[in-house]
């Protein structure tokens, strides 16, 4: 863990500016523009009854395969999106102006709230067919995977070392060659790491997106997610156990077969000039490298890809100087276009608000938002209070820190929905106010991000500083205050930012917990959105999501990012 980087956060220094406003307006405007279409398509649809989900564990392997395929389809889409969007944002100055803030906003928006729209939209594209629902689920998973991958790729593209850039230019690499020989390899370690994070994070969405109810319609797809949903509905605790087991196996399998080899392989792309001690080779990679037959196959495939990457594609011509002075007229047209776009988006928002919503409703969501904010911050700080000492203790023991890494993926992937039964039973039994009783659900999802970042920070803490602290007999509170806490601060804040994002998404699921006939509701923006979704009330969904996005962005920009910048400045040399 200690060698991992968090490229998606390197954007920390970007300050809020007018482009954020442009991006927010565009996202909300687009959202409101599709709502009438959604309303229209809602009516003629009949729920596809073709899909039935069984609670028999014998069906689970099949469901697991369906779910995994869905996740990988989304992953492929995410990678394609990453390569195109990230490249465009990095290569075109004009595209960059709008694409980067847009990505930043999309990253902060609780995607789960959009689920109802996207389902209805995709089902409307293929009326009466499973394909629409399938695409909707894949799209939902995609939206949970793509943003951080794209951000990481964009960041890598904009930080390609100047000397390699010059070498590529002076040796006349074509754009295509440059992409595959310089840019993609340079971005690879960050991309692989973010892909792993994305896969873990997307389980939450799998569970939420395979079975969804909008208004009177319920769609479900064969998969672990709908299996869990049915088990919750029928109060079948055994089936939930089976689902957890199936999930564990799937995670273990793709971790061993795909991510371990991928991480080990991507180490060769790490931009370092000194050889570091390599971790043990994962068995799959060893198998591919040592077994004769497999080696021939992987070599051939590798050589083929290599040749494709090495093709010039574009004819060789006298290259001109890379940077031409930007055309003023082009800029003016482009800015004018963006201004029109923003105006259209604003118009949409105004029309939407004036027809469907009252000021009172807006005020209500603000109060709900504050309640949810309190819950989110409580979850993060509670996790910190519990897990920071434990994480430091583990991180300072290298063996323990290493062992904790595989556990990270599973625990981070674990969707909070699976804990509902336990919590609901406890809350009902002890007659606890749901407003308080449901809060632990949020901690379940968020605590791991804090824990594992703290472990990484403590493991990376410089040995000489530890020795210096011991030599000067710095102990007790002073050690925490002056030595360890400042040392792990950047890591902790990274974890806390991720945890906060996850917690906001969790509110949508965790403020309403269902176990059979019992439904517990805690007041907050999450339950507001969840209920609006259940009633198919698009106006209020949009309002809820917009307010939640606002909360996320404001908290990130005004609180976490400055804190992160501060920590990074203070806790590092230079």
């Amino acid at each position, binding site marked *: 863990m200690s060698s991992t980087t968090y490229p998606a956060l390197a954007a920390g220094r970007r300050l809020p500016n007018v482009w954020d406003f442009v991006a927010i307006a565009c996202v909300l405007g687009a959202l409101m523009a599709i709502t009438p279409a959604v309303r229209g398509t809602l009516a003629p649809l009949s729920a596809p009854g073709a899909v039935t989900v069984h609670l028999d564990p014998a069906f689970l392997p099949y469901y697991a395969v369906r779910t995994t395929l869905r996740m990988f389809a989304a992953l492929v889409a995410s990678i394609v999106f990453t390569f195109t969007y990230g490249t465009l944002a990095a290569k075109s100055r004009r595209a960059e102006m709008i694409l980067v803030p847009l990505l930043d906003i999309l990253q902060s928006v609780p995607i789960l709230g959009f689920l109802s729209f996207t389902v209805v939209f995709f089902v409307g594209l293929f009326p009466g067919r499973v394909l629409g629902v399938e695409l909707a689920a894949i799209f939902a998973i995609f939206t949970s995977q793509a943003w951080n991958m794209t951000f990481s790729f964009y960041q890598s593209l904009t930080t390609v*070392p100047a000397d*390699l850039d010059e*070498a590529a230019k*002076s040796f*006349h690499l074509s754009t295509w060659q440059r992409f595959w*020989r310089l840019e993609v390899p340079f971005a690879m370690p960050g991309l692989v790491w973010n892909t792993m994070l994305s896969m873990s994070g997307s389980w939450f969405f799998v569970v939420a997106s395979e079975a969804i109810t909008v208004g009177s319609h319920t769609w479900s797809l064969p998969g672990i997610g709908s299996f869990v949903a049915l088990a919750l509905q029928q109060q079948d605790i055994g089936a939930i156990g089976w689902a957890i087991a199936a999930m564990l196996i799937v995670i273990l399998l793709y971790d061993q077969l795909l991510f371990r080899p991928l991480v080990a392989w991507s180490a060769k792309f790490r931009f370092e000039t000194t050889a570091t001690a390599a971790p043990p080779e994962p068995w799959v990679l060893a198998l591919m490298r040592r077994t004769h037959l497999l080696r021939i196959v992987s070599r051939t495939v590798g050589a083929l890809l290599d040749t494709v990457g090495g093709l010039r594609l574009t004819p060789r011509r006298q290259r001109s100087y890379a*940077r031409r002075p930007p055309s003023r007229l082009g800029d003016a047209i482009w800015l004018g276009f963006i201004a029109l776009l923003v105006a259209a988006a604003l118009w949409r928002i105004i029309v939407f608000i004036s027809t469907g919503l009252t000021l009172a409703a807006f005020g209500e969501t603000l109060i709900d938002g504050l309640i949810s904010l309190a819950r989110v911050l409580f979850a993060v700080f509670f996790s910190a209070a519990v897990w920071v000492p434990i994480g430091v203790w583990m991180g300072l023991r290298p063996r323990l820190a290493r062992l904790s890494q595989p556990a990270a993926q599973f625990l981070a992937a674990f969707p909070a929905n699976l804990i509902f039964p336990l919590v609901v039973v406890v809350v009902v039994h002890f007659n606890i106010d749901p407003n308080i009783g449901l809060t632990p659900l949020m901690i379940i999802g968020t605590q791991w991000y804090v824990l594992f970042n703290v472990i990484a920070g403590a493991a990376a803490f410089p040995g000489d500083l530890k020795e210096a602290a011991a030599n000067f007999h710095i102990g007790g509170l002073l050690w925490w205050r002056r030595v360890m806490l400042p040392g792990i601060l950047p890591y902790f804040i990274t974890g806390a930012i991720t945890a906060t994002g996850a917690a906001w998404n969790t509110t949508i699921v965790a403020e309403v917990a269902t176990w059979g006939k019992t439904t517990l509701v805690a007041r907050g923006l999450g339950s507001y959105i969840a209920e609006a979704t259940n009633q198919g009330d698009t106006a209020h969904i949009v309002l809820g999501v917009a307010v939640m996005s606002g909360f996320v962005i404001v908290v990130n920009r005004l609180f976490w990012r400055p804190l992160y910048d501060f920590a990074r400045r203070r806790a590092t040399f230079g």
Partner: protein
Amino acid sequence: MDTVVTHSPLLEVHNCRQSYRTDAATELLVLDKVDLAIAEAEIVGLLGRSGSGKSTLLRVVSGLLKPTDGEVRWRGSSLHGPAEGIAMVFQSFALFPWLTVRENVELGLEALGLPLSERQERAEEAIDLIGLGGYDSAYPKELSGGMRQRVGLARALVVHPDLLLMDEPFSALDVLTAETLRTDLIDLWSEGRLPIKSMLMVTHNIEEAVLMCDRILVFSSNPGRIASELRVPFPHPRNRLDPAFRQMVDDIYALMTRRTPSAETRVTAQPVPAISQALHPVSTNLLAGMIESLAAPPYEGRADLPALAAALQLEADELLPLGEALALLRFAELEEGDIRLTEAGRRFAAADTDTRKAMFATALRAYVPLAATIRQVLEERWNHRASAERFRDELEDHMSPDYARDTLRTVISWGRYGELYSYDEEADQFSLEETD
């Protein structure tokens, strides 16, 4: 240059000007009126201090950078971007860490779209020539610095360039490794085994230039100009201990220090305000250490710069800023390749810490207008605080942001040592706290 008119030169640079535009719409000159011609079969060295624009000129020649003004002619036609037949060796090696030695070497050929068999053949040839045989499948990070630069050389040579550009190719290597690489390269060159016509190298190492080049162009700084041109008359292989060789090194030292006072007067003569004088970041520890060394035997207050550089294991590029900083503060004087302590310098060497700090503060107020201005502004303010931003802005009107940053950092560090003012990094503010 007029002697090689038999056929037109490989490369010609006419009246090249490279400027840098700041926000204030003032232009900062990096290169000014540079003319350069490279004929076939010669090694030309661009010698100068860091920041003198010599690397910029190399990038202009390579086609990576478009000159603001002037023309570059390559093989008779004007240059528009990275040209074929020009290959570059980088100071930082610029090897692709994810490609093996062979793949790195083949990269330039792949870009030319050559078929696989020819690529392999030529790569093999270059790898063997440069002494990398057996390392084909190694990754750069497995190699030592010297081996890495050999890969850099092989990668440039494999495309059979007419002109090989080298940007301080040996400065990232240790002394022994650098020497081996230099002699290997020169041996191959004199034996005519390098598939190139000419070389243009940038260096700040005077001995290296005299050892390798046929012609040396000495750069002056700020803005970069070619101050003088020297022919090196010795045949290869050259002997560093040859008195004529030593004399030439001495002469170049003298040449490079002689310009300094004139450069200083030029700065003050121009409308550039005195507080916007660029300062090289030289630590006060080094300054004090240098004064002590000079005051002690065997120097007794006076030293020959090349000898001092050798004794202190400093390169000219490191020693000269140090000498200039001492000269600026009037603790020493530079003349004809020598450095001599002034009366103040001698007193400084003998003084205790507090007296030294007081002397340093006095020198700062008298001879470093920027430090004096900061102190004065702080004294005038009711709260004795001033944002560093305004000084940075002021500096950036007259120099590049990099220079401005260095200058500000230097003036902060010097001011702290002299306890003239203190600086709060978090608030980016100067203040008189703790100094009174």
